[in-house]
């Protein structure tokens, strides 16, 4: 087990990539705090981990709210005694160009995707510094590396996540804290059909567009979870400040 006796906090852990990662981390021996806004789903994920013999707890968190972030970190440390791994995964997406994107939608995407990463890290880092090390993984996107259509706030927020990752890696490397981000391509999560509906596209037509990449398919949440596990474990002990694209070749061409 590659995360034996580690304590991990996963934001947006109630569905999709966050849920898959929380479950995989627990399988690999980590005690996991599942954080998110949806209390019912979050408790279900934690219960499923516990029923499989793992350790998990749910912490209701809106990562836009500093007090929530502070409480998520504090409750994790109170429940499990320390904090070794933070996966900043919570994210939202509304497909709009700059003309159509409302100010509220702009703020929400920047606040959840980017400011939430800052706030969670701000409160988690002091624990990691005191412990003498830790790992932070941020969920960026292929659209944090290249632009996409009708996604201005999402691209801006995810590009921000890539460079926030690098800046934090520089600041905290000497404290034994590694900070990397993962850049998924289109992944089979609830976010995809939501985006199809938002764009007013038929699911089959939308999915065919998503699969149009060298590997000819979309990814699974599990495939991203495995990348996050690599970055969370000692297998990546010389990696910090990196952006790991997991996108079936979507950003290769």
């Amino acid at each position, binding site marked *: 087990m590659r995360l034996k006796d580690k304590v991990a906090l996963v934001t947006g852990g109630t569905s999709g990539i966050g849920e898959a990662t929380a479950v995989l981390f627990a399988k690999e021996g980590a005690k996991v705090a599942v954080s998110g806004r949806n209390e019912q789903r979050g408790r279900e994920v934690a219960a499923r981990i516990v029923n499989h013999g793992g350790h998990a707890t749910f912490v209701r968190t809106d990562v836009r709210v500093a007090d929530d972030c502070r409480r998520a970190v504090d409750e994790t440390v109170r429940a499990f005694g320390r904090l070794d791994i933070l996966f900043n995964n919570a994210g939202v997406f509304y497909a709009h160009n700059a003309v159509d994107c409302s100010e509220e939608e702009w703020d929400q995407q920047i606040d959840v995707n980017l400011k939430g990463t800052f706030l969670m890290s701000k409160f988690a880092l002091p624990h990691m510094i005191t412990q003498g090390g830790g790992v932070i993984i941020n969920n960026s996107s292929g659209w944090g590396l290249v632009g996409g259509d009708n996604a201005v706030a999402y691209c801006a927020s995810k590009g921000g996540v890539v460079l926030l990752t690098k800046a934090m890696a520089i600041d905290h490397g000497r404290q034994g804290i590694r900070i990397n981000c993962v850049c998924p391509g289109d992944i089979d999560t609830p976010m995809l059909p939501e985006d199809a509906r938002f764009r007013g596209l038929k699911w089959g037509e939308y999915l065919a567009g998503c699969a149009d990449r060298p590997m000819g398919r979309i990814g699974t949440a599990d495939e991203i979870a495995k990348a996050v596990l*690599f970055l969370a474990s000692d297998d990546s002990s010389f990696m910090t400040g*990196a952006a790991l694209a997991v996108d079936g*070749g979507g950003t290769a061409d």
Partner: protein
Amino acid sequence: MTKSLQGKVALISGGASGIGRATALLFAREGAAVAIADLNEAAGQAVVHEISNQGGKCIFESADVTRAGDCKRVVERTLRELGGIHVLFNNAGIIRRASVTELSEEDWDRVMEVNVKSIFLMSRLVLPVMARAGGGSIINTASGWGLTGGAKAAVYCASKGAVVLLTKAMAVDHGPQNIRVNCICPGDTDTAMLRSEAQQLGEATERFLAEAARRPLGRVGTPEEIAQAALYLASDASSFVTGTVLVVDGGSLAGSI
């Protein structure tokens, strides 16, 4: 616990020393049968013995991977004796620390042939094998200096930049065949090649290594740490990863410290 390369065959160029050797040992521990191609016969045979002593399977073929005939011999022997090729690690590489004005044409040609052309020569032989088998994973060793420039390293930077884009181009072409092609960009790693750079530059080794450690993690990497990255890209853990540049450099490229 299941081994992540159980039943797989991996072919590693430059596998007799440094990153290639560490990767051969790790892949064998993870269940792969390993074929090593390298110019250094004595060092290559030593790796074969080390892996055999640990109960693993390894063969060595003396080869200059800049020669098409040598590559063909390596691939054919691997297929004959190990029964397939699921993972190709194009890792052979050399460095010449010189600016363009200092660099001889011979050195330019040699670095480009070892670092870049060998990947083309090996890959064009192995890709059809992988395509017939329904897929595979190719990993190329690029460098942090394939993404940003460095002093007195003109041909090395040119060669490694080429490796990065050759990786992406092959990923685009062969993704439909379920062949994943990725590269690793190591930062300064504690190998004989790193120490040779100090000599080429006429610098004291200790001072050169201290300078190399100036990065967010405050140290150079180990060959084993690069091997772990290669293992991730070789195994099914990276099943949706292709055309990717995996930077393993202690944070050096994240920005200025």
